């Protein structure tokens, strides 16, 4: 019986591991931490034997992974505060302006998303996981669906404006630059 249960659980993990990893990564932005959170999430489900009677696998897993990741972020913040360090250390990666100059627009947008306020970044990050609509996002974040939708729109609008400004600057400069005689 245990062997059969393990086989079923392996299939369950195989179905959902990438999804759970992406949810954790959306919150943590670190592959190693996201993998840890994914393992922890599945381990909790195995221990509680709660994985067999799930109504909505994805919804439940998204909530569980998101909470585990949020707990990890809180623990990291607490630890960094105890060690008198700044949690949001500037990364060694180039800033959006530098990335824009090298035309690495994907990296630019990721950095712009990271720089958004958390209340806007989180719904947007969850929407990037895929298979998650505004209703699912609202459930995971424990906010009304309307609020989730509004935040998603605001985040996208803000991102668009920043990106537009970044793209415009070098082009406009060249467009409106005085012509050489």
């Amino acid at each position: 019986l245990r062997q059969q249960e393990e086989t079923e659980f392996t299939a369950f993990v195989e179905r959902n591991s990438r999804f759970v990893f992406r949810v954790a990564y959306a919150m943590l932005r670190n592959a190693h931490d996201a993998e840890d959170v994914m393992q922890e999430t599945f381990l909790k489900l195995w221990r509680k034997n709660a994985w067999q009677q799930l109504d909505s696998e994805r919804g439940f897993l998204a909530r569980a992974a998101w909470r585990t990741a949020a707990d990890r972020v809180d623990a990291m913040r607490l630890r960094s505060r105890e060690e008198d360090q700044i949690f949001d250390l500037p990364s060694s990666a180039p800033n959006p302006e530098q990335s824009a100059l090298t035309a690495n627009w994907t990296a630019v947008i990721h950095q712009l998303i990271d720089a958004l306020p958390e209340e806007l970044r989180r719904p947007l990050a969850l929407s990037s996981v895929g298979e998650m609509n505004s209703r699912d996002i609202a459930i995971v974040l424990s906010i009304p669906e309307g609020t989730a939708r509004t935040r998603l729109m605001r985040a996208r609008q803000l991102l668009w404006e920043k990106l537009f400004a970044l793209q415009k600057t070098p082009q406009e400069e060249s467009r409106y630059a005085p012509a050489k005689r």
Partner: protein
Amino acid sequence: MHLQSDKTRTEDLDRLLDAALLSYAAPAEAEDTRTLTAGVMASVRDAESHRRQWRWGFAAGIPALSALLVAAVLFRGAPHTPADSRSHTSLAAAVQPQAAQPALAPVPVLPQISLHEESHREVARLTRTPQTVLVQRTLPKLEQFPSPHPLSLQEALLEGFARTSVPAEKAAIIQAQRNSTQPLEIAAIRITPLNLDTENETSPER
């Protein structure tokens, strides 16, 4: 022309934004599904083996602990009796528990009847323990106490002597008995000190 280029740029930006959002939660350094699953199952198996170890630990520990507990409860529940008084548990000892003790055996035989009775009462008082009281309650009640019984040979001789002897002889015997109970006096022993000088002179050289 500017409007056309602005529109194209807007569409490009939207496309760029969507593409970047799709890759936001899917890092390039992420492992494939099979590796992720293998990692999860390895941690699950590890946790299971830990749990099994704990189970075995409990399985071995709980009986040992309960045995210790039972032993402790039994040890505490047992009556605390000194080793030399364990014979009280037997019926014979319960009937006459301390009568055979040497402290009570040498009752001096005194000519006065009152003293004799007094000593009997003392013996009865000393030998009255919870066990004897329990046994005495079961015995039938006597019509006369103490029960009349014929004198023993020693008592008859003593009574005859008391009746026929002269007062001077009685006084001499009483005096002799009193003296017998007096503490013995031992003369002081004198030991002459050893003469060490003469001993050293006579001992052979090593």
